């Protein structure tokens, strides 16, 4: 008798659990159709509990694109001049004194941020070393007088308003430190390629192919 009662109670219990499980599985499959398949793949005891998956939060976060380890440096699109704005401009700051050059380029960057001009990129070009050879008054042999290093920094602006441009240029010119050359040019692909190392083998093969 007791055993039969136990069996009956067990049957009821299992029926309730099954119903709960079915309900939960249905809800799981409705909300997370991807995870519903996993629920059926491995049979684990506690998946039938109503608190299953209570700690899940990753499905609520925004989806991140998978990170590629090697990110190839793609050239940013060179914008052309429109009716009211200039295209991609390169503001090049060059000089012999690295500190002044750096500080001036930082000043330009901050000014652009403040005035609302979009800065596409801000990078440095490789330093150029120039050897000054001097011919003495007595004698014919030239000797090395000094090595001058020219540092260059570039601030790339993308959308400069044509009305804001004269004010912007005036501010730049007023704050130009001594010995620093400022040059503003349009950005070209040749400028972008000049930043990379030369590949003589590739160029040789290309010449051979054509």
């Amino acid at each position, binding site marked *: 008798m007791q055993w039969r009662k136990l069996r009956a109670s067990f049957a009821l219990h299992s029926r309730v659990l099954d119903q709960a499980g079915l309900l939960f599985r249905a809800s799981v499959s409705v909300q997370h159709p991807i995870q519903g398949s996993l629920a059926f793949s491995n049979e684990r005891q506690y998946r039938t509990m109503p608190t299953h998956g209570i700690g899940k939060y990753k499905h609520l976060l925004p989806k991140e694109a998978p990170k590629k380890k090697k990110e*190839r*440096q793609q050239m940013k699109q060179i914008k052309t*001049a429109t*009716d*009211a*704005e*200039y295209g991609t*401009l390169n503001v090049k700051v060059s*000089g012999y004194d*690295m500190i002044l050059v750096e500080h001036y380029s930082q000043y330009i960057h901050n000014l652009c941020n*403040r*005035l609302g001009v979009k800065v596409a990129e801000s990078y*440095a*070009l*490789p*330093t*150029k*070393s*120039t*050897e*000054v*050879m*001097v*011919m003495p*008054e007595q004698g014919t042999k*030239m000797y090395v*007088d000094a*090595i001058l*290093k020219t*540092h260059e920094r570039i601030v790339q602006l993308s959308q400069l308003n*044509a*009305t*804001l*441009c004269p*004010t912007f*240029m*005036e*501010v730049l010119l007023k704050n*130009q*430190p*001594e*010995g*620093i*050359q*400022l*040059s*503003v*040019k*349009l950005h070209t692909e040749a400028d972008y390629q000049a*930043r*990379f*190392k*030369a*590949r*003589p*083998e*590739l160029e040789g*093969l290309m010449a*051979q*192919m054509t």
Partner: protein
Amino acid sequence: MFLSLMGVDGHVSQGPWFASVLTLKTSAPLRAEPKKKKKVDPRREQMVRERLKKKLKKLERVPPELIPIEDFTTPAKYMDETRVRGAPQLPFEESERRALLLKEWSRYKQTQHRAEMEAVGLAVEAQREALEELRLESEELYQAALRPDPLLFPFNHQGPSYTPPKAQYEAPEGKYNNITKVYTQ
């Protein structure tokens, strides 16, 4: 066509090396038939081309590297730990004076910056008002005023110098050599 040594004048020659002067000097390869083109040749050219293409593909797969900038690498002689100098011990008044000087300087620079930003704001506002007036005058001129100036670029400007250039200055003879290091991948 190719005359044989035996046939033309009837003289019996003792070999290809002893022909008379009147005959056409023909050598063995000349007398032979034209060379048959080997079937392997176009295939060989194709193979060479395929090899070149494969090499190109391999090289192109490697992304180009940026030239390293010498400014950003500290030279080795500054990393020498034996030459480190400790901070000097300042008396109290000196450190106080320096702190107060820094505050004065920052206040001065702040007023300068504020004045600059105000000036920029005023200039932009004045420009905007002028453009509004122009718009009321004529729409065409307004549109022309908004357009960017193509003759502005390239723009170069030298910074000021401490001293003006000397009137009659004779520079010593010499020349400049470019010794920038060329990097290849």
